[in-house]
């Protein structure tokens, strides 16, 4: 019984529910659940980068878009089958994510945030204006998937595919953060100089964190294109980025289970307000603000307090007790930070 209310039990139950859902759900519920699975991937990928590796990047929506565009364009332009285009989209997003590690080696904190924000807007601009490649602002349709030998409709097929991939990527992240790599990420996040002095290769781990996060977002993008059979630039704008950030913060920065919870809850919120764009913006702005102000460690910190079986093995970054020196350090010109 105790196991059931632990974080492991919670994950198992949640994914089991997601697994049996297609037997009774109507097509709308199936679509929303599929969306929730995609956002779980996105939130975990972003959390690995900002929560564990401590790199405040703002380009997750752009990576999501790059994955979707890569998978869709490979199919439409080159006739590549979806089964190849999906992983290829992940790899392409991962490679472009790797490029972003380059400014991250020189910038940190708000400077990195704004450089990646500019990069994300640049990507969005490319989606809209590089018409020869991307079909421009109106987007384009992608051929419907067929799961021919299997006895499932395309909707169920993409759902189960997303379900399997989400479980796989969640387990991978779950184990990764408990491994040598995850500990190196956390060490790097807490203090780069101390981490480097312990023999952690900052270059390698930063590049790996960006590549991994890009891969998660890229795979989610490929699944998104398979789910909607349509790709358009406005799915990958700044609001999308705010959605991802809110999921990570609502769930809990530096917690894989937290990202799962945050993604599931916020997809539901998003769908409830689907008709009203202005209400979506107000709701997500308010949710993000309320959590930053009053519960900066997210829902996980609350669950950890009330559920005795809940174990979070990785220390959460405590925004409240961040040393003042570090804050002052941010103010200095980038070249002159104190060690």
């Amino acid at each position, binding site marked *: 019984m105790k196991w059931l209310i632990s974080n492991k039990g919670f994950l198992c139950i949640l994914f089991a529910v997601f697994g049996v859902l297609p037997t009774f759900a109507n097509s709308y519920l199936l679509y929303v659940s599929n969306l929730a699975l995609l956002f779980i991937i996105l939130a975990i990928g972003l959390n690995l980068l900002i929560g564990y590796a401590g790199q405040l990047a703002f380009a997750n929506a752009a990576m999501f878009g790059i994955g979707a565009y890569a998978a869709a364009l490979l199919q439409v332009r080159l006739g590549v089958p979806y089964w190849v285009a999906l992983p290829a989209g992940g790899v392409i997003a991962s490679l472009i994510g790797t490029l972003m590690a380059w*400014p991250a080696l020189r910038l940190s904190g708000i400077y990195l945030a*704004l450089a990646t924000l500019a990069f994300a807007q640049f990507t969005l601009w490319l989606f809209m204006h590089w018409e020869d490649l991307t079909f421009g602002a109106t987007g384009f349709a992608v051929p419907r998937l067929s799961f021919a030998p299997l006895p499932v409709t395309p909707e169920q097929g993409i759902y189960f595919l997303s379900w399997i991939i989400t479980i796989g990527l969640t387990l991978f992240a779950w184990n990764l953060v408990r491994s040598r790599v995850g500990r190196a990420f956390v060490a790097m996040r807490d203090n780069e100089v101390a981490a480097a002095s312990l023999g952690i290769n900052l270059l390698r781990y930063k590049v790996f964190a960006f590549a991994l996060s890009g891969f998660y977002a890229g795979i989610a993008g490929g699944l998104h294109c398979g789910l909607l059979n349509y790709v358009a630039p406005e799915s990958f704008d700044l609001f999308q980025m705010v959605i991802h950030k809110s999921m990570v913060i609502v769930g809990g920065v530096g917690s894989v289970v937290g990202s799962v919870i945050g993604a599931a809850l916020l997809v539901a919120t998003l769908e409830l307000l689907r008709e009203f764009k202005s209400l979506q913006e107000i709701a997500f702005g308010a949710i993000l603000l309320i959590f930053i102000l009053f519960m900066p460690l997210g829902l996980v910190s609350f669950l950890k307090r009330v559920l005795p079986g809940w174990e979070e093995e990785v220390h959460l970054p405590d925004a409240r007790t961040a040393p003042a020196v570090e*804050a002052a350090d941010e103010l200095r010109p980038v070249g002159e930070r104190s060690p």
Partner: protein
Amino acid sequence: MLGYLITSGLALGALYALVAIGIVIVFKSTGAINLAQGELFMLGGFFAFMFHVQMGYPYIPSLLLAVVASFFIGALTYQFAFRPLMKAGLVSVLLASIAVSFLLKGVARNIWGGVGDYIPFPPMITASAINLNGFIVLPQQLVAFGASIALMLLIVAYFKFTRSGKWLQAIADNVKAATLVGIRVGALHRLAFALGAASAGAAAVLMAPLTLLYPDIGFNLFIKAFAAAVLGGLHSIAGAVIGGLIVGLVEALVAGYVGSKFQDVSAFVVIMLVLVFIPRGIMGGKAMRKV
């Protein structure tokens, strides 16, 4: 062609510079980047629209009212969203400012229209274009340019000659020393955020007649103003002005000679290149060290 591009680039650049000055004022005195600056700009424009078109006040008073309203919105956002986070770290403030920007955008969309509603704003003067030795100038651009230069001088004078301006300089220079001599740092942070919002609002009321108003205008403008501020080194008002004029000129020239769809790219490219290669900006020769 070139003459027109230069004048329109400078007119636009002066407005970017005004928003950039807002970013610099906030950054210098608090160390935070306010991502909602663009939305404060957007609100300033809509306030002017509300006072002038919807409520029918005369032109100049409604512009002044819009700037005053922006000032108070800036103070309010600080009071409710940023003040509790100033000690928690600047990254939290940055995230909170994104949240605020979406809140403001959603509210504005609710009040003044949905996606794709572009609201025209009546021009200040309806005179036809002037030809100065081959430089074709729209009077509206001239007014915007002149007014923004005047406002910049006003801001510089404020920092030089008033007590609160000097206090703001003091907390930018050394927060601990300023606290020790009894300067109320919290109140000044609020003032900095309010002044930043007011300069964004002023830019908006000057720019509104040149362009259309829509709820999504803010972020694009923030990116351009941030490019200007970061080009100027984020620490100096003079740098922000020069950065703004450069960004405006580059944009106009790119739009004229490369193609209008490339206009918006120049700002992104400037930010990425400057942050990575010359993070202190073109005016950052002597590094300002903060304690």
